[in-house]
């Protein structure tokens, strides 16, 4: 399956998808040392590290980019992000970290992509390829 979206930050990434329908905050919800999601979010205990993170939008604090940057430096951050609508705080995370990110896709990514699907994203061209897990 190929989906078209709008570039937030250009670049190419591929990896396993980790998907949530719950808005995310990179300061409250991410443990920058382990790359795992903290309690209080439905992904609790799962790692974002080296995955393609698919989520609807952000919530809460506007500080997320600074914590996400520390996660990137520690090698625990995700490889790429796909959002339904990246509210500005979330968009700025991708831009500051220079991590590929798309939003405003032709279909809602959190509905059609499942955790474990393999994703190839070309955020420069605005393309997400979803290879369903068999």
């Amino acid at each position, binding site marked *: 399956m190929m989906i078209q979206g*709008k*570039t*937030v*930050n250009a670049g190419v990434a591929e990896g396993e998808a980790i998907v949530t329908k719950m*808005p995310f905050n990179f*300061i*409250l919800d991410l443990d920058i040392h382990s790359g795992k999601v*903290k*309690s*209080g979010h439905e992904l609790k205990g799962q790692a974002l590290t080296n995955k393609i993170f698919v989520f609807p*939008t*952000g*919530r*809460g*604090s*506007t*500080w*997320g*980019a*600074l*914590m996400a*940057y*520390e996660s990137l*430096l520690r090698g625990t951050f995700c490889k790429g992000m796909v959002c339904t*609508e*990246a*509210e*500005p*705080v979330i*968009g*700025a*995370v991708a*831009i*500051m970290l220079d991590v590929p990110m798309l*939003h405003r896709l032709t279909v809602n990514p959190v509905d059609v992509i499942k955790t474990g699907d393999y994703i190839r994203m070309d955020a420069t061209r605005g393309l997400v390829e979803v290879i369903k897990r068999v």
Partner: protein
Amino acid sequence: MIKLTDEQQRMYQGERGPGVQQAMTILVKYGNAYDAERMIRVDSTHTPPAFNLDFLTQILTGVSQVKAISSLHMTRICCTRWAGTVGVVPELAESACQAHNEGLDLFRKAGFLETFTCVPFLTENTLRPGMVFSWSESSAIVAGNSIFGARGNRDSAPIALSSAITGFTPEMLLHKPENRHAELLVELEGLDVTSFTDADLGAIGFYIGSQAGDKIVAVTGFAPPLSYEELKYLMTPMAVSGAVALCHVVGVTPEAPTLEAALGGQSPRATIKVGPSELKQAYDALNTAKSDQVDTVLFGCPHATISEIQKIAHLLAGNKLRSGIRLWVLTADVIYSLAKRSGYVDVIQEAGGLVITDTCISDRFYGLYGLKEDLGVVATSSGKSAAYHTRATQVHYGSTEACVASALTGKWRE
């Protein structure tokens, strides 16, 4: 794609130095992601000082003076002059303060104001209707848009910093009057609005945020006037459980003289009711304590105003905190000066409490970093603070009066 003026193009091409180029590149990407067509002047910025030092050094290279009034957000408690009083771990404090001081040196050279507060509009970084601001602090953004009628998006730290460096920000989302109309209508029902405590307002806001996501909200049913403090308690939690950047309180806030004005003549995309059961739902989410034990009472999230400090001082006057209980009131240093001169700081200290400046009582990873002692069971009248502390400890959430009473007895009573 965003169109740049000649001057903006020079910044983008690097003719104004590498730092300015990096900042303009960030802003161009940001603008393109949200369909901005041009850059506009920014009147005010507010930035956390907590940047990675290498990143900060790079982006401030060659920046001798920020292009708009620019204030700094709170820092770590172990880097404030209160560190000795509250007790911090020396090794943690040492490295944190070194990073803080090196960053501060860079900010100072670039002309940032050392406000160290989450309420820049209560210091010298004030807003008027129509002004364009680029701030990183969710509670200040919803206040700036809603209470002061200025225009800003949920610009996180790198965006606010880049706007300060270039003096420009991409025109998008809430900068445009046509994008400022309410999408979610909230009707209060079955609640006595004249008897709300600060905690009731916060609970309502926390519930609304959970339903609103990033939508623009209009709330009906309040009897004007509402004070800044009442609006702050209502709106701050909307940017915790949700990502609300603009909340019109009909008949109260500047862009909502009427419901029609708040909605821009359109029908709302959704309407919800908030009554006693929704209020209880929010209280239940924020009240996680399993016993009546209280160890630490926290006020000032967002930073307390002089009126709030005055109220706490009056409640504490002539009393003593129960032995072993902490009571901290967080505020901005300029407000502290007034509170000190007015005698409130002394009253709070004589009771055993502390007024602390320049830091944050809610953010355990940053603001409270380096504290030697665990805070134990927390009591607060701040919906935001309660929500943050429920992640790590047990919380009592209730009115300022109930919180002060609990500090005197050591027991929480509804």
